[in-house]
């Protein structure tokens, strides 16, 4: 197979890169061995290739790879660091919790609310079932007694009705 110089020149880079096969490889190899100009062109390509290879090897050696993963990882974790999130995006981010996290948050919130709601100390001295503060009691033409009775401390205002004076009109108080 004969081949012209201009065709060989087009194939020299691929020849150098060992990408040629079959008849093309045989023809270019034979042509370069015989043609001085194409041989020189191949040498030029080889020099450039070696120079590039040496350069990149030097760069690769001088470049430390030890911190590369950290930088890549950081970039993955904070992709939008340069662009602040909108309020809506932040809110959606907060609400986009896994189901177990939602359940845990809800459970803790309910527990805290129950503690706050029913802890005796947090109930505004609250509230025995019948807790009552009597601000004033005024009785005319009769006497009164004020009791606190029962477990719930229910207040009782007892009027000594004059209509039954002389009888057991204190309700038969036992204590």
């Amino acid at each position, binding site marked *: 197979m004969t081949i012209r110089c201009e065709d060989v020149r087009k194939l020299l880079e691929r020849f150098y890169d060992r990408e040629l096969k079959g008849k093309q490889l045989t023809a270019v190899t034979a042509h370069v061995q015989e043609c001085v100009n194409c041989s020189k062109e191949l040498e030029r390509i080889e020099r450039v290739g070696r120079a590039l290879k040496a350069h990149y090897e030097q760069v690769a050696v001088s470049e430390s790879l030890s911190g590369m993963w950290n930088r890549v990882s950081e970039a993955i*974790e904070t992709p939008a660091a340069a662009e602040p999130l909108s309020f809506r995006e932040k809110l959606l*981010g*907060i*609400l*986009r*919790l*896994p189901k177990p*996290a939602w359940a*845990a*948050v*809800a459970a*803790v*919130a309910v527990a*805290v*609310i129950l503690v*706050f709601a029913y802890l005796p100390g947090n109930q*505004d001295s*609250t*509230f*025995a*079932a*019948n*807790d*009552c*503060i*009597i*601000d*004033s*009691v*005024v*009785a*005319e*033409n*009769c006497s*009164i007694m004020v*009791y606190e*009775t*029962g*477990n*719930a401390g*229910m*207040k*009782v*205002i*007892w*009027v*000594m*009705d004059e*209509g*039954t004076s002389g009888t057991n*009109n*204190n*309700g*038969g*108080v*036992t*204590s």
Partner: protein
Amino acid sequence: MKNASVLNRAVTLFAFLLILFWASSQALAQRDEATETVRVTVYLIEASHGTPGADPEIEGIVRQLKGTFGYSSYRLESKIRKDIKMGDAEKISLPRSRVMYVYAQGYEGNRIKLKVKVSEKTGRGESRDTLNTEFRIVEGGTIVIGGYDCDAGKLIVAISADMR
């Protein structure tokens, strides 16, 4: 890293829920009195030394009274329910020409402020106040005013109050 992010969001959400709860409880605590109505439930009970027993509806009240009073019978004469706007009063008739006025005076510190006045007719057709009392009671709480004569024993008036 991801777990920390989830934890941060969970903590934020938890804080948000707590703030929501606190704000709602504050709002409830500061209800506008002017728009509130007090529901007053009045139980007229006749206490006597008759057949032992108590009406089921007043068992809770009677249980409290039994520790102090020696009556054996507690009979529910009537149960009266009144919705009273703040600043207004309602009239409740008691046995033997007595009248009780219940005034809704306010709502403060989770307590309902009430004034109760009991009047009775004199022999000359006039009425006189026999009792004037003001008190603050928790929602759902009960106060008892008693001692007035009635048919077979003493009248006990149990007053419960709730916000509407």
